[in-house]
């Protein structure tokens, strides 16, 4: 029996690897997702077939409750709310890890790692690592969710001595782990859980809204490592393999996001970026004026353009403007223009956020380009249409070493003959820096809600 279940778990692991491999191209991705589902079914059925698993009815009820809730949420959720959904799901994995670890602590005989109060030290160490990472994933994801859902301010919350306090909390957790190994005490186990919950809250609170893509990727990674820790505790290779896959995936995404925003991961974790900039006092703003245009002006210029590159940002997601934007793109194509979309890797609130929204609006994915694929083409394009993006187009990142975003790769929209900025107001971006592009002669600002502006341009084009 054990041989069969071990082999079945191996098959499930391979399915999960294929699920990730499928994502190397949009054509193979759906098949990949099916592999993932098959792997999960194999894992669950195999576990249910273990002789130690007896209470089928309550288990089926628990799966049904979770399944109904999960299905309902996943079907209802709007694509613009994807980042907070993913954050919420991460928190569940973290919490589940804590529950599994606690169950293993109270009934170690179920997993063959000892008897209550007499668990092998190695297992206790692995268990506490799994618990601590799981708890941090849970509370950190709850905060990330609250920030993304605007339940709490997206601004970084900092207090004096924060880093010192967090470090002390981290050390306390390690001390508690040592204590648990020597005492096998339930009170110490729960103390680890509480300390890790607190650590998760405090780690994510000081991180600002614009750093959310990094945070979500990081929590994604943590949820994998938590599964790994539990896998070691339960001596289960499937959990170890899957946890390692997820953990490394999240880590790579964090790295890519950090690079996209020219931040070091350390810098992001320490937090406090963005938000505290209380207005760009000495910035290039001053008393310079910008040229504001109307939707009619924009429609007129774009009608005569041969090529248009659209640069979407988080503002497009907030205004739910993706459908109106695609309509505008279609009309421009009818006028004979080539329309392409340029996506900065740091745009939006999670990796690939903009790609999903454009796909939702039926934009064909071969019209959507990554930064290094399209950046050279701005020089030959007539119009760059920037909608709800700011920092990712700011030339200060290349020219001004004093700027907080200096060194960040940007989209060279300033090379286009005409640049339109769709913005609600003149407020600066998340980095709190002014964008000098706004004041250039070839820039026209289109003030207003991104969706309304697109609709008005559409009307004017028709």
């Amino acid at each position, binding site marked *: 029996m054990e041989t069969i279940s071990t082999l079945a778990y191996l098959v499930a*692991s391979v399915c999960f*690897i294929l699920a*990730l491999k499928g994502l*190397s191209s949009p054509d193979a*991705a759906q098949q990949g*997702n099916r592999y993932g589902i098959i*792997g*999960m079914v194999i*894992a669950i059925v195999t576990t249910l077939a273990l002789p130690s698993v007896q*209470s089928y009815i*309550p288990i089926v009820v*628990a799966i049904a*409750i*979770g399944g*109904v*809730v*999960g*299905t309902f949420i*996943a079907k209802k959720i709007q*694509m613009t709310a*994807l980042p907070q*959904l*993913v954050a919420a*799901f991460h928190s*569940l*994995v973290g919490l*589940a890890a804590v*529950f*599994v670890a606690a*169950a*293993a602590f109270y*009934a170690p005989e*179920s997993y063959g*790692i*000892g*008897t209550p109060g007499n668990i*092998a030290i*190695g297992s206790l160490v692995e268990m506490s690592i799994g618990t601590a990472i799981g708890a941090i994933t849970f509370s950190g994801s709850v905060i990330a969710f609250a920030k993304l859902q605007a339940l709490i301010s997206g601004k970084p919350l900092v207090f004096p001595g924060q880093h010192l306090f967090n470090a002390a909390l981290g050390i306390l957790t390690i001390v508690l782990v040592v204590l648990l190994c020597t005492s096998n005490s339930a009170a110490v186990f729960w103390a680890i859980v509480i300390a890790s919950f607190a650590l998760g809250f405090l780690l994510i609170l000081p991180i600002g809204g614009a750093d959310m893509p990094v945070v979500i990727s990081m929590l994604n990674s943590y*949820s*994998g490592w*938590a*599964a*790994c820790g539990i896998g*070691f505790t339960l*001596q289960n290779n499937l*959990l*170890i*393999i899957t946890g390692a896959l*997820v953990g490394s*995936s999240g880590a*790579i*995404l964090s790295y890519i996001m950090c690079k996209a925003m020219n931040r070091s991961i350390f810098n992001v974790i320490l937090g406090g970026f963005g938000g505290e900039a209380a207005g760009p006092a000495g910035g290039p703003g001053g008393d310079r004026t910008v040229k504001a245009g109307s939707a009619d002006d924009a429609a007129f210029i774009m009608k005569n353009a041969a090529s248009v590159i659209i640069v979407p940002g988080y503002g497009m997601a907030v205004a739910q403007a993706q459908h109106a934007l695609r309509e505008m793109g279609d009309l421009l194509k009818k006028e004979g223009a080539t329309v392409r979309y340029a996506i900065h*890797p740091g745009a939006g609130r999670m990796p*690939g956020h903009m*790609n*999903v929204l454009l*796909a939702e609006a039926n934009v*064909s994915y*071969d019209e*959507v380009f990554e930064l290094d694929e399209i950046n050279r083409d701005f020089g030959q394009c007539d119009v760059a249409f920037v909608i709800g993006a700011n920092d990712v187009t700011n030339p200060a990142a290349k020219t001004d070493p004093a700027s907080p975003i200096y060194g960040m790769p940007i989209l060279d929209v300033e090379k286009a003959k005409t640049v339109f900025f769709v913005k609600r107001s003149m407020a600066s971006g998340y980095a709190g820096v002014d964008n000098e592009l706004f004041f250039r002669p070839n820039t026209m600002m289109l003030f207003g809600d991104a969706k309304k502006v697109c609709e008005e341009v559409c009307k004017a084009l028709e």
Partner: protein
Amino acid sequence: MNPHDLIPVQVADAASHVAEAAAGGHGAFFLTGLTVFVLAVFVGYHVVWRVTPALHSPLMAVTNAVSSVIIVGALIAAGPAKIDFSTGLGFVGVALASVNIFGGFIVTQRMLSMFKKKQK
């Protein structure tokens, strides 16, 4: 020999056997587990770097769904045919992980079904 003396000795003896077995078995598994872990990190590293940036959101959703494989642990915890604290924890764990499994795969499917090439 007084049977009352015997019982604690036997219990202690049995307990030490269990502990030894656990410790011995544990040490042996740790090396296997570590081997599997390191290799899996390498596989993950190489597979994930090949994921196209356009699909980074679905990647995140699917890894999220897949990491709910932790349900395996929860099922074992919920397994024994009795209701106590640890099986209770197991049931809650099963329910939480199920939300994630269903939600994660469905939302990934929804996203992926939207990525289309131009229909001509």
